[in-house]
């Protein structure tokens, strides 16, 4: 396991069936995987263990694949460029062909 850096995180993964990028959120007190990172559940370093089991269970139950923690700033902003691109979705205008 890579050593975790940072104090605040969100959980991200891909949905197994369609491959979409999803983030762990809370809705009506339950954890769900949602495509928008804006409402992702902000998790402090010492809170990770509270959600780990649910995340691993979701993986075992074939809902998601490859869950991992994405480091964010306290205000929720994603730090790494790669994660920004992943959470924003594709940013190239490919329809400018014709």
């Amino acid at each position, binding site marked *: 396991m890579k050593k975790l850096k940072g104090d605040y995180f969100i959980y991200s993964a891909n949905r197994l069936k369609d491959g979409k990028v999803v983030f762990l959120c809370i809705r009506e007190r339950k954890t769900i995987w949602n495509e928008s990172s804006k409402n992702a559940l902000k998790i402090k370093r010492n809170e990770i263990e509270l959600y780990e089991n649910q995340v691993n269970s979701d993986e075992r139950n074939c809902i998601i694949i490859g869950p991992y923690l994405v480091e964010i700033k306290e205000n929720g902003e994603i730090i790494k460029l790669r994660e920004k*691109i992943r959470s924003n979705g594709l940013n*190239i205008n490919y*329809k400018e*062909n*014709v």
Partner: protein
Amino acid sequence: MYKYTELDKKIVTNRVEQFRDQVNRRISGELSEDEFKPLRLMNGLYLQLHAYMLRVAIPYGELSSEQMYKLAEISDKYDRGYGHFTTRQNIQLNWPKLIDVPNILKELAEVEMHAIQTSGNCIRNITTDHLAGITEDEIEDPRPWCELIRKWSTFHPEFTFLPRKFKIAITGSLKDRAAIEVHDIGLRIIKLNREIGFEVFVGGGQGRSPFIAKKIKEFVKKENILSYLEAILRAYNELGRRDNIYKARIKILVNELGILSFKKIVEEEWKKIKNKDFINAKKEIDELKKAFKIPNLKSNINKNVSEKNKEFNTWLNQNTQKHKISGYSIVFISLKPLKVPPGDISSDQMKVVSKVAKEFSFSEIRVTHEQNLILPHVNNDDLSKVWNILNKINLATPNIGLLSDSICCPGLDYCALATARSIPIAQRVSNYFNSIEKQKIIGEMKIKISGCINACGHHHVGNIGILGLDRNGEEFYQITLGGSAKENSKIGEIIGPSFSSEKIIEAIDTIIKVYLIQRTHKKETFLETLELTGLKPFKDALYDNH
């Protein structure tokens, strides 16, 4: 064009059903992701940054109109209406859903296509010269041999769990348009004492540790090529490193043992299996040669085709080449127009290409390893019509071989392995040099851009190579100069410290300026100038502290 035999059809159909079963077992949880991953990779299904990615095989770059049309339909039905052609002549769809892939494969099978072995630690697509069969400078058409070797390598029971991926490229000409010297095995068809055979190269590759392939055998008789390949693959399978994925390619093994030592091992094994005929090759190759005969083209005098339309003439000059049959031309379709990610094509464009090929090129299309397309047999009388159709759909940018005809990997915009974005660099470079006149003054210029050290953009063999890196969270770009993928291939040299995203275009501009000043005459290519001047004038201009 090659048409499937009953055996081909059976194999592909079986594979579709086998994968459907594997997907079902994955979704039910019977297969874990660890167990499923190598199985889905062997069907070309990756998990990338935003979604799954399906890499569809285009064996040795040959596509029929029907197949191109089906790809368009699939991209509309299951994906986002576009595809991306790769440096190994395949096509990638970037947004398929796992649950749809079995049906996608089924529809592909209907037009004799598949995604078999486009990923995974097995033998990948056999790639070749995009001018195979239609060029004068050929000893023999490599395509029948590509298909023979494809059959030999598909579901080969011994070589499906190699230390790492394995790439083979073949050329039938003394000119190398297939980059054979940067492949794990490169084959060149030659004639010795009136006999056809192969020159065999081994251990080339790019990525983290680029190597130019070494010649392992001067001449292998054509009837022995499969057994020779078996001997090489067997040596690699047994001895290739499996402890470190970055040291697992055959290039590392050949480099560590030395070519003589490696050759000794291969030849010893080959002695034992030399005369084996693994797939009834003698009979197969005769059938295959018939299948790959070019259409019956009636030769004509090459009359002057140019017209009063300046745009047409520019395109004619830059994007077409003489066919070996007089009166016909080879038409390049540039997938590098301004603003578009290099190698991308929309489903609408695919449909138009399909129709144009059907009407004007005997339903044949080819994919080059430089991410462009070709209409291989166009009658000169039809060139004007073809240009009109392509021009309307933005596929007639007259930049083949010029600076804006760059090779570019998907990079950090798409790829989970990338360290930096590559597509915006390609777009910005094209934009900056967008004048075709200016590009023609510069002349032949191969810019190749990779978004990480895996070098899928082939930057090591770019005249100007650009490698995207991550420096403390910021994108930086390292430049190499002097690479070449042609015969007598060369790995480019790093010119100095990398450039920020803001400064990279200026750096490229500086390099071009130095070249234009330094060249002794207008026809001297960038590579030729560099050979004479060395890196110094470029380094001085780039890193002078001003």
